[in-house]
C-alpha cells in the first residue's frame, strides 16, 4: 500500500464518519419529545437545565453537531446519562467493544467453517442431490428472522433441554468454559443467516472457477479432486466471499443489536439500542461514529487480504 493509497483511505474514513454521524444526528433530531424528559424524568428544574446545557439542547442543530464533533476529535465522546449520574461514553465503550467483537468473530468463524466446505462440495457436485439439498436448506435458513430463531433456540436448547445458558456474558479471562457456553446460542443465531449467504456466493464463484483451464490442467496432472477443489479452486474463488464477510463483520459490530439484546450481552449493539431508547443524543452520535470507523478499518483490512489471496492484485497495487 502506497502513501497515496493510505491518504485516500483516510479521506474516505473522514467523509464516511462525517456523513454517517450527521445523518444519524439528524434522525434523532426528528424524534418527537424532549430528551431531557427521558433522561432525568424526576430531576429538579436546575438539574434539568444543567443536563440541557450539557447536551447543548438550547442550541440549534448544526451548532450542537459542531460542538459534538470538536469534542469527538479531541477524544471527548460525551457523557452517558443514567437516572442518578453520568459516565463518560468512552468508559462504557471500552467494556462493550470486546463483547461485540467476540460475538461477531465467533459467529463468522462458525459460519465460514460450515459454509466453505458445503459450498465447495455443492459446486463440485453441481445439480446433484447434495447441491439441491444444500441450496434449499440455505434458502430456508435465510428466511428465518434471527429474533425468531433466537427465541426458538433459547426455548429448546436453553429452557427445555438445558444444554446451553439462555443469556448473559462471562469474560473469557474469568471463566473460558462458561464464556464459550454462553456464546453458543447467540453465535448460532447470528451465523445461520450468514451461512446461507456465504454458501450461495462461494458456490457460484467456485462453479465459475471449476470451468477454468487451470483446473483441467490440475486434473490432467493427476491431482486428487479434494486437492484440486481446496488448493486450486478455493483461493481464486474466495474474493467475493471475503468482501461480503468483511462487510458483515463491519455491520455486525454494533449491528447485532437484536441478538445482543435478546441474549443480554452488553455489547455495542446493546448500548446503541439503549442510547436510542433513552435519547442519549451525544452518546449515540459517538457510538455511531465509532462503529463507522470500525467498519472502514475492517474493510481496509479486507482490501489488504485481497493482495494475500491474489498475487495479481498485489502487482497492480505496487505498480
Amino acid at each position, binding site marked *: 500500500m502506497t502513501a497515496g493509497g493510505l491518504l485516500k483511505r483516510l479521506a474516505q474514513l473522514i467523509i464516511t464518519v462525517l456523513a454517517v454521524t450527521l445523518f444519524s444526528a439528524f434522525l434523532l433530531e426528528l424524534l418527537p419529545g424532549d430528551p431531557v424528559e427521558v433522561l432525568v424524568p424526576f430531576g429538579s428544574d436546575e438539574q434539568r437545565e444543567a443536563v440541557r446545557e450539557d447536551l447543548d439542547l438550547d442550541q440549534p442543530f448544526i451548532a450542537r453537531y459542531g460542538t459534538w464533533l470538536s469534542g469527538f476529535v479531541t477524544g471527548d465522546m460525551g457523557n452517558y446519562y443514567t437516572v442518578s449520574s453520568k459516565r463518560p461514553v468512552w468508559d462504557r465503550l471500552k467494556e462493550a467493544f470486546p463483547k461485540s467483537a467476540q460475538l461477531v468473530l465467533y459467529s463468522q468463524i462458525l459460519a465460514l467453517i460450515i459454509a466453505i466446505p458445503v459450498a465447495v462440495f455443492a459446486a463440485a457436485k453441481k445439480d446433484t442431490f447434495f447441491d439441491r439439498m444444500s441450496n434449499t436448506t440455505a434458502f430456508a435458513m435465510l428466511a428465518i428472522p434471527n429474533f425468531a430463531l433466537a427465541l426458538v433456540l433459547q426455548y429448546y436448547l436453553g429452557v427445555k433441554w438445558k444444554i446451553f445458558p439462555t443469556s448473559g456474558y462471562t469474560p473469557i479471562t474469568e471463566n473460558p468454559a462458561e464464556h464459550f457456553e454462553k456464546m453458543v446460542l447467540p453465535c448460532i443465531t447470528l451465523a445461520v443467516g450468514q451461512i446461507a449467504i456465504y454458501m450461495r456466493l462461494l458456490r457460484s464463484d467456485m462453479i465459475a472457477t471449476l470451468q477454468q483451464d487451470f483446473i*483441467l*490442467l490440475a486434473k490432467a496432472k493427476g491431482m486428487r479432486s479434494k486437492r484440486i477443489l481446496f488448493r486450486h479452486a478455493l483461493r481464486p474463488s474466495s474474493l467475493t466471499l471475503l468482501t461480503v464477510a468483511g462487510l458483515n463483520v463491519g455491520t455486525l459490530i454494533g449491528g447485532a443489536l437484536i441478538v445482543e439484546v435478546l441474549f443480554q450481552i452488553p455489547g455495542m449493539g446493546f448500548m446503541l439500542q439503549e442510547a436510542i431508547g433513552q435519547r442519549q443524543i451525544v452518546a449515540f452520535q459517538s457510538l455511531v461514529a465509532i462503529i463507522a470507523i470500525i467498519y472502514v478499518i475492517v474493510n481496509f483490512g479486507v482490501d489488504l487480504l485481497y493482495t494475500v489471496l491474489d*498475487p495479481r492484485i498485489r502487482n497492480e497495487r505496487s505498480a
Partner: protein
Amino acid sequence: MSLADTAASPVPVPGTGPILEVTDLSTSFASPRGRVGAVNGVSLSLERGRTLGIVGESGSGKSVLSRSIMGLLPASTAERTGSIVFEGKELSDWGDKEYRELWGTEMAMIFQDPMTALNPVMKIGKQITESLRFHLDMDRSTAKDTAVELLRSVRIPEPEKRFSSYPHEMSGGMRQRVVIAVALACGPKLLFADEPTTALDVTVQAQVLDLLEEQQRERFMAMILVTHDLGVVAGRAQEIVVMYAGRIVEKAPTRTLFADMKMPYTEALLSAIPKLADPPHTRLAAIGGRPPDLVNPPEGCPFAPRCPYVRERCLTELPALTPVDGDDTHLFACHYPVDSPETIEIKDRLTAQGLLISSPPPGSASDGAQDGR
C-alpha cells in the same frame, strides 16, 4: 507402419507395438437440443516415440478426441463408446478414479491458452513440484531442484528466480514453456499437445514447437499434436489425421498426404495457408461456410455443402474411410477424390472461369460464387 488391426499384446514390451490404439471411438455430449456427436467412429494408432498430427478447423472434434482419449471430459455430460487401448490396457470404461493413475505419469496434456492454463494464484514452481511430490514422492528440496532443472530444460532463463514467479509475471511464450514443464514433470509416455502454439506470437511458435520436438526425442515420448494448421504438423508429425465434423476424412503418413492428398477438405486446408511466394495482395483463400450442425448431421458427406466439387451422390451417401489402391496406410473418405476424373473436370471448369479453388461451391448461393472475374 502397422495397421489398426494389429492385435495389442497383453504384456506390452517397451519399444514395440503401438502405445495407443483407438478403435471406433465415438464421443457425444448431452445438450438441450439433443446429443451432439462430437467424435464419430474414429480409429487410430500411435507408436512409441512418434508424433501423430490431428488437423481440422474449430469444431471438427479434434480437441474433444484428444480429451476423450485422455478421459478429461466430464462424465456427467460426455458419453464415450468404442475402444481405447493404452499400453495394453483397455481404457474405455475407466472413470476418473482409474484414469488418475495415468494422468501426469503416463499421459499429459498441453493446453491451447497458456494465459488461462496456469493457476493464477500459485507460484509456477509450486505448480510443478506438486505433481513431483505427489506422484514421485519427492521431498521438498529434491522436488524443487527437479523443477528448476525442468524449467531450465524448457529454456526458461534464470529458472531459480522464475521458480517463485507467478504466471502473470511472465509472457505468453514463457508461460507455455511452464505448461510444457508441468506436463513433462513426471515423464509421461504420451503427450497430447492441444493447439500448443495457437495462442502464441508467430515468433515464438516455432521455438515452442522445436522445444516440444526436442523434449519428445530425448524422452522417447509419443505425441499427439492437435492443430488447425497443416503447416505446424508438416515437418513434425510422422502421420497426419485430418478430421471434419467429428470424423476422420483422411489419414496418411505425412509425406504421402502432402504428395498425394485425396480429400477436397485437406486440399482446402492446405490452400488456406498463405504462401510466402504469393505476390502481395493475393486474396487469402478461405473455406466458405461453416462446419455442419453436429446435433442433426446432414445425410451424405458432411463436407458436401462446402465442397467445390460436390455431386449428387455426395449429398445422399456418406463416404466410408477406405484405403487408397495399393497403399493401405493412406485412407480417405470421399466419393470423388481430388484426382478422380469427375473432380478434375470440375476443377478445370472452375479454373477456366477464374474461380478460386477455395471459394464456395456453385449453387451455394453465396456472394463468393458470383465474384469471379
